[in-house]
């Protein structure tokens, strides 16, 4: 009999929403020791299903409207509050997405883990068990860690603490809601390996939620694909990944860019050259503490060819965003030269009043679509802001804006509406239109797609490529995702703690990375094709192209 079987689960949305059910008649099962991956884009209802299992709905206005959830033979929807509390943490562990905010910042690590043991009256020495669990999740020197506070640990370390806490009381089911989406790709690989190892060793079933099919390929025994609250596809890993029956699944699989370099364009004459860029932050020295210095950029040099795209890849803290902001003169570098065709000398030395020329040649697209548009300004005004500031007359700017809206495939009525009436993808299009309004020669994209769902990502990347081709734009494409870099870039530089550790053509770097860090990055990328399929079904090959 399955450890957990969800039968025809319905979760109702409050009246007046765009649809009646957030989860509409979903059924799925997990056997003991098995890993079920639930995959879907944002708004698909995958997290709500998990929350319903332990009765932890995110807000009072979301009610379970039907169906049953049998766990170890008993229906959790009919359980009393006390019984549910015994279940949570005792029989079902939970790991959430963002490690930075999932631990109580004011409580020591040891106390937060032992609290789980006390709650489920763990007989035996709780302190020894805590240290044992911290060691099990491969955390360094557990004895000292017990006394530490969350803010003294890195994101990866905190996620390990969450896992240690969730498994402390030896639950039979672990629910992990996108546990690695907020982590760097190398850390993600370690955490995924840790989860696989711990669940297999203790026979714990794993209810794993993700939006990344690469992760599904590495983790899943069984896969459930959800969309708009409904179950679209359900089956074994191989069946769903390699013989997807629903075209929605096929489209999702297709939008995950394979780790292969796109067609390489010839490196045209250099339009942008940076040499010896240095930048470091100094935290203010306290009365009795020396100031700490963080080196964001150390001797960074590169060249960008006309019409080419240079990918800047690195994990968080590698200095890639600082580089983008230095190039845009949003931050002042400590040292270094940057030359741009059409501007004499090092434009880092231009005084702020002389920056207008630079503003017309280099523009930027930002990461978070919800934060990069002023919520209080209409779309048309936002796009027109740049040219108007530089003194173009209203009428030409108005026509130019309508042209740009068409360019980014948005109808002209959008000009009068406010950002909150658009989806993430549409807002990013607007941001691109705003950048293009200045008719730049170079476009800097700082993690321009990482906040979007994978299907929307594909659309934006295609749009950017089309615009680059038609306008002859050169691009500096900053990203942490090698697969996106592979698809977009002709050349690539890999950064680690402020230094360039590798640069070269995309094709060469992918196939023969010179630096060990680059190799580590490449291996860490979860890939569809790399899974050890029992028998490689025929369609894997087509996916390769």
């Amino acid at each position, binding site marked *: 009999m399955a450890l957990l079987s969800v039968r025809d689960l319905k979760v109702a949305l409050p009246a007046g929403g765009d649809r009646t059910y957030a989860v509409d008649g979903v059924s799925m099962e997990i056997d003991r020791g098995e890993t079920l991956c639930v995959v879907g884009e944002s708004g698909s209802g995958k997290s709500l299903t998990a929350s319903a299992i*332990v009765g*932890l709905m*995110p807000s*009072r206005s979301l009610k379970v409207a039907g169906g049953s959830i049998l766990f170890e033979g008993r229906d959790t929807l009919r359980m009393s509050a006390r019984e549910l*509390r*015994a*279940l*949570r*943490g*005792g029989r079902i*562990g*939970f790991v*959430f997405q*963002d490690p930075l*905010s*999932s*631990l*109580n*910042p*004011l*409580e020591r690590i040891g106390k937060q883990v032992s*609290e*789980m043991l006390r*709650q*489920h009256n763990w007989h035996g020495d709780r302190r020894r068990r805590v240290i044992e669990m911290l060691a099990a999740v491969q955390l360094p020197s557990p004895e000292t860690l017990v006394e530490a*506070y969350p*803010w003294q640990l890195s994101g990866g370390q905190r996620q390990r603490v*969450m896992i240690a*806490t*969730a498994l402390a009381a030896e639950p039979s089911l672990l629910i992990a809601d996108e546990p690695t989406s907020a982590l760097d790709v190398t850390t993600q690989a370690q955490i995924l390996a840790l989860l696989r190892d711990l669940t297999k060793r203790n026979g714990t079933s794993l209810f794993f939620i993700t939006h990344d099919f690469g992760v599904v390929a590495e983790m899943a025994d069984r896969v459930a694909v959800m969309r708009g609250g409904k179950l679209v596809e359900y089956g074994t890993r191989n069946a769903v990944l390699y013989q997807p029956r629903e075209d929605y699944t096929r489209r999702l699989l297709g939008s995950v860019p394979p780790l292969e370099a796109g067609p390489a364009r010839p490196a045209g004459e250099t339009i942008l050259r940076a040499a010896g860029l240095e930048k470091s932050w100094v935290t203010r020295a*306290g*009365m*009795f503490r020396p100031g700490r210095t963080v080196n964001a950029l150390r001797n960074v040099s590169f060249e960008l060819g006309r019409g080419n795209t240079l990918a800047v890849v690195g994990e968080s803290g590698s200095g890639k965003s600082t580089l983008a902001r230095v190039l845009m003169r949003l931050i002042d570098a400590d040292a270094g030269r940057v030359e741009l065709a059409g501007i004499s000398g090092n434009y880092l030395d231009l005084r702020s009043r002389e920056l207008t020329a630079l503003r017309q040649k280099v523009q930027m697209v930002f990461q978070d679509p919800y934060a990069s548009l002023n919520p209080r300004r209409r779309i048309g005004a936002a796009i027109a802001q740049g040219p108007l500031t530089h003194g173009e007359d209203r009428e030409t700017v108005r026509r130019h804006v309508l042209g740009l809206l068409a360019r980014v495939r948005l109808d002209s009525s959008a000009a009068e509406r406010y950002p909150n009436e658009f989806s993430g993808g549409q807002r990013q299009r607007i941001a691109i239109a705003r950048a293009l309004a200045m008719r730049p020669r170079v476009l800097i994209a700082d993690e321009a797609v990482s906040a979007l769902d994978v299907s929307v990502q594909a659309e934006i990347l295609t749009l950017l490529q089309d615009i680059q081709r038609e306008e002859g734009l050169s691009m500096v494409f900053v990203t942490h995702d090698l697969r996106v870099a592979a698809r977009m870039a002709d050349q690539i530089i890999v950064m680690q703690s402020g230094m360039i550790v590798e640069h070269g053509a995309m094709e060469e770097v992918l196939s023969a990375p010179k630096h060990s860090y680059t190799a580590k990055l490449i291996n860490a990328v979860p890939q569809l094709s790399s899974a050890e399929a029992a028998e490689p079904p025929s369609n894997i090959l087509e996916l390769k192209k």
Partner: protein
Amino acid sequence: MRFAYTFLAWLPRALLVLVAIGLLNFFLIRLAPGDPATVLAGESGASDTRFVEEIRGRYGLDQPLWWQAATYLRNLATFDLGMSYRMQRDVADIITERVPATLLLTSTALTLAIIVGTLLGIRAARRAGTWQDTLIGAVAVLCYATPVFWAGLLLVLLFSVSLGLLPPFGMSGFIRKSGIAAALDVLHHLVLPVVTLALFYFAVYVRLSRASTLEVLGRDFVRSARAKGLSETRVLYGHVLRNSIVPVVTMAGLQIGQLLGGAVIVESVFAWPGIGRLAFDALIQRDYNLILGIFFVSSIMVVLANLLTDMVVRAIDPRVGRS
């Protein structure tokens, strides 16, 4: 060690503030028209040039202003607050005699308000959206909107004039008792003024703690705590309270400094012999040393309150001052 460090970091700034405030007050007071000599002359119903000159001479009011300021600062350094012109007594004695009454009144009111306000705020946040939340919110707005002096008068009209349960004025009966009886008598007189002052502060803390608790309840680690199977009460008092209390502590620290302000009104309505009313009278009578003394004492209270708050906040949230 950390608290010693915060104290050392605090000390120089605090001294600077005290001196700066002392000087500002010194000059501000003298901007008000008239000086102690004119007030004394006016009151004694008789004066001639020699009488006024003699007073000015005796109190050094005829010296150049900068010299007076210098002597004032020199005395301040040795905690000598000088003589009160009107009461012919050492300002330090008068203040030590009257400060306990104000402290007793305001600290009781503030503590009462903080405890009741914070608990009700948490209750409202926990039951957000229900009738309890709206009821508590409405009571808070009612208390906030009630002018302190009007509340005082209403309470006196109700409880002492018509019901005769509580004394309307003063801190003790006409003839002073001693020992326990005196203490009870003071408590009996304390009820109405404390309730009046507490009503106003209470409203501030209900709204503040409700908003802060709501904000913390929305944070991810609360969801993790629930996922550990903790009961709602344990989540609230084990995890949420510690995080949501920080803004309450900061506001309390700020308000300790403002106690003297609130006291002026309540002490006037209830004839409470504290330094609030004394400050007002001293200002009207241009009793320079006395008003400067009271301001000095209240700035010390403010500066100490800041230190206290800083320490308490650091105790609650070790990140402060480290990151």
